[in-house]
């Protein structure tokens, strides 16, 4: 078996500023060895450790989709030592990626179901991965209705804006884009916080509808009651958590919630599972 601590070498192929305040950048990586890309076979919802030699590693959700070949993409918020260093790196620089890690959204279970995707702020990365995956011509027929509620502080803080507006034009996905507030008179989408938009626009739950949530703790906290009000049961609410991680493979011990390790048993849990664990996230 291979060394799970050894990252695959990658080259930065492209860097894109993702938000107007420049606190987020999207990095496109290409594997130095094409064989490594095959080994790095992932599902939407998984994460990986971005590894900068001499600086450190950070766990980041994979923003590209399994149906996109030839590269992997990550959108990174500048906050700590490693992310700050990464933000200063240039196209062509060599670093490492370790993964894919963790579980994924339960795609088998979601087949032939309505899926409601709810995201806020920076946490839209694995949700982008999921939407691209579901909209892929080979996959779209596997799912019934797709609704997306995505909100950010302001229009310029929305991730993947071009794609959002493209999806908006399609008829096989219902987009509910929202911002907390904006002075832009031409803004034609929603204004308001995500929980409120969910309550007003998300479909009511039936046995065939599942909600996937990824966002800051405060958004998750207030979105849960909105979903419950719409009739979602705790097994129909699927959430992606983040905790401080180091190894990403369930060994270093810090990311646990009860006996579950967020890095290995998660990051995706149903509310039913989370309700049985201590809320240490």
């Amino acid at each position, binding site marked *: 078996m291979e060394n799970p601590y*050894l990252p695959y*070498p990658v080259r930065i192929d492209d860097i894109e500023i993702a938000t107007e305040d420049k606190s987020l950048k999207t990095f496109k990586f290409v594997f130095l060895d094409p064989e490594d890309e095959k080994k790095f076979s992932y599902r939407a919802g998984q994460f990986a450790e971005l590894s900068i030699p*001499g600086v450190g*590693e950070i766990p980041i959700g994979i923003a590209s989709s399994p149906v996109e070949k030839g590269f992997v993409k990550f959108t990174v918020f500048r906050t700590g030592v490693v992310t700050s260093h990464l933000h200063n790196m240039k196209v062509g620089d060599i670093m490492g990626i370790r993964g894919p890690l963790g579980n994924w959204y339960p795609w088998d279970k979601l087949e032939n179901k309505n899926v409601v995707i709810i995201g806020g702020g920076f946490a839209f990365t694995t949700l982008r991965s999921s939407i691209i995956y579901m909209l892929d011509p080979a996959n779209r027929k596997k799912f019934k209705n797709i609704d997306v509620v995505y909100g950010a502080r302001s229009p310029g803080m929305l991730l993947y804006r071009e794609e959002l507006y493209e999806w908006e034009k399609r008829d096989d996905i219902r987009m509910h884009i929202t911002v907390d507030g904006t002075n832009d008179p031409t803004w034609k989408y929603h204004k308001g916080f995500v929980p409120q938009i969910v309550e007003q626009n998300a479909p009511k739950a039936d046995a065939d509808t599942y909600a996937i949530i990824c966002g800051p703790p405060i958004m998750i906290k207030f979105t849960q009651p909105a979903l419950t009000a719409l009739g979602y049961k705790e097994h129909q609410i699927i959430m992606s958590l983040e*905790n401080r991680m180091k190894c990403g493979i369930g060994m*270093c*011990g810090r990311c646990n919630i009860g*006996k579950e390790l967020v890095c290995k048993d998660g990051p995706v849990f149903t509310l039913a599972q989370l309700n049985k664990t201590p809320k240490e996230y």
Partner: protein
Amino acid sequence: MKFITIDKKNWAKGIEKSRETYRLFGPVKDKNGSFIRDLENDMLPDMSCNDSVLSAKSVLFPQTEKILFTTLDESQKDHHIMKRVPGDSAKRAVLGIRPYDAKAIQLVKLNFDTDDYRDPYWCDAYEATTFVGVGINKPGPFDFSTAAGTGPFSETGLDVLMADLDNAYLAKVLTDKGGAFMTSCGFDTAADEKESQALFDILRKEAEKNISSRIDTDKLKDKTVLELHEAPFWDDIAFSCINCGTCTFVCPTCWCFDIQDEAKQKSASRFRNWDTCMSPLFTKHATGHNPRDSKTQRVRQRFMHKLKYFLDKYDQGIMCVGCGRCVKSCPVNIDIREVCKIMNSYEKKE
């Protein structure tokens, strides 16, 4: 099953001989107690020592271990591509390891050697190591190993178990690895199997009789995680805690670690260091949010992990072998035996 008698007069010579094949580790006396150390040159293990201050876990899991390295010099072809530090797969033997420390290594193995991932550093070291234990004839007052699923003459995780018979050691060879080590020492005086086993049984019973300290864990399984987690006693248990890492570092079953990078000039290395759930940094997010921000939460994590999460996850008992080191070393005398008693006997009031 094979028993070998080793005259103590031949002990040193045999151990020296084994160095041709093995790198040796064992207890060495220092100013404040014994430590399991790399036995360099002609150092001999101190087999008579009381318990070592730290457990034997460091033989497989050093407090600081370099795992990967690379060069940052862009004129080099493979710059920024990390490589594994060449492993030391040479055979090694730990002499005089206590049976509960050997059992602890089996518990730690559940973490490092899983169906999904194999930690190559720990596992390679494990496979290269022969564990030569010595039974504890007179367990100390803090030893509650029998109640923690092991004991002074437990064979779990050992390749050889020796009994100290004043002038001689009686060695019970438990595995092929153990047999190979004995051969490399030239120890080959076979002892009568039936008599030897009878002697081991007597020693074990005598030793176990000496153990007066115990814990009860029978009711932990039936309680829910949340019931214990939300119980009201944690603030009182945690009050005196100063949140140092002593209990976790002296513990033979604590395996948590941190990964840190260091760079000097053009070379970069990745290390892993022991980490401790007692430190706020252990779980602090880069955003500043900390799921276990308070001392009480961290103390609760330690005991819940050892006495409940581990038990539920692996169904192999608690994550404690009853060595008593944390009881002895804790600067404020937080006693896992007391905490276990409180947890085990806790009944949620409706």
